[in-house]
């Protein structure tokens, strides 16, 4: 594990993301509501630029009663959807929402002296 400097925190304000090249890998770094995330930008499906995809909350549904329409709602987990074919990954863990055997590599982001580092 090495700590690699990404940028000064001011260069990644809330709601923004950056795609960086580190050791030959394309990696996306996100600031979502003040929390930082980083993930591989190479989708395990067909190599799509997953970190350019939409980030949102996981869609959940509850079986609220026999004969009733299932109640859909957004859950707390943030997910990243690959723009090429829609594979969705948990932002935190990188695990595919439909198949726990599939995951997108994710990296820990740390802040030291107002600078962002990721561990790769």
């Amino acid at each position, binding site marked *: 594990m090495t700590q690699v400097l990404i940028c000064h925190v001011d260069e990644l304000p809330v709601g923004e993301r950056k795609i960086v090249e580190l050791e030959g890998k394309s990696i996306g770094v996100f600031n979502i509501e003040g929390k930082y995330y980083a993930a591989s930008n190479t989708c395990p499906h067909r190599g799509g630029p997953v970190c350019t995809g939409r980030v949102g909350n996981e869609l959940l549904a509850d079986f609220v009663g026999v004969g009733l*329409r299932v109640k859909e709602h957004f859950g707390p987990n943030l997910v990243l959807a690959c723009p090429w074919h829609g594979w969705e990954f948990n932002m935190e863990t990188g695990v595919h929402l439909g198949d726990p055997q599939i995951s997108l590599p994710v990296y820990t982001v740390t802040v030291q002296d107002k600078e962002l580092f990721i561990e790769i």
Partner: protein
Amino acid sequence: MGKYKYRVVDSDAHYMEGLDQLVDYFPEPWKTRMIGGSGKDKASIAGIYPISTGDRSIFGRIQRDEFTEMQRNAGGFVPEIIPDVMEFLGVDAINMLSQKMLTFSRIKGDDERATLLANAYTDYMLDKVVDPSEGIYTMMPIPFQEPKEAVELIDRVSHEKGIIGGCFVTAGPEPPFGNRKYDPIYEAAEANNLPVVFHAGGGGIDEFVSAGYEKFIETHVLGFLMANQSQITSLVVQGIPEKFPNLKIVFQESGVFWIPLMMHRLDTEYLKRQSEAPLLTKKPSEYIKEMYFGVQPLEIPDELSYLRQVIDMIGGADRLLYASDYPHWDYDPPSAITDLSILSEDEKKRILSGTANEVFGI
């Protein structure tokens, strides 16, 4: 045990009832209509049942001489014929599904007919045909067009030993069977520990979903397959196995090669569109591997190892039930299983009777 060294349970044969046999089990005014009684009401069979076109016997090429003989001896297709059918097939127990109910799903307008027929058929079968001590069973047709009445029928007869399942005919229900409209039926079936059996239909030339096919071989190859494909898709995507986790689900009469196709196709799309099946907690194929499948009409490829792979892909012999479909044109005798060199002895036993015991308790 008869012809075979195995116990054999036929999970799907057909009872070829005539309307005249059901007459006494209809309420008025239908009873009078059926017998063409006094007054102005008189029903014809075509007025009650949708019929299916296409010549099953290939214009006389397929002959059931033994069946003709059985009917001659018994005086038609009457309950007394069943032991002869069982002996001919070499089966120890038989599940006889109504012949006429196979066009059930095409009852769309005037849906009272579905409830009438399902109740009359069930009562007739209970009264005159089923005999668990002789290994003779049936399934109630589910009048899904009227879920409330379907629940009443399930609650009324599920406790009968001769009733081993509730049958949905998969050709053409609108909406398809995953729709929440049918939830109460699944809830009742689960509560009554009644397996639900989705039986293919819909192979006729004229009523096929897409017009213009010229030969029955085309519409039958496609119709029975597509009917089951459409319903398994709806059930799985809408999360019926999640809503009713103890519900036993069986599919019948499309062979076995279609099952891995659906598993893999559904999984592939699910990985891309998981948010459209939000009740699921695992891949669609995992639910399918918890269902059961009647094997008839079993595809026998030149390279038997392909069939072996299919069986392995769908979760092994544990998922499979021997079914004859007798006396229909494409029936499979038990030798379709006993002759299969790719199966172990235990697997043959499982398919011929073990799975039926697990699912239907027979």
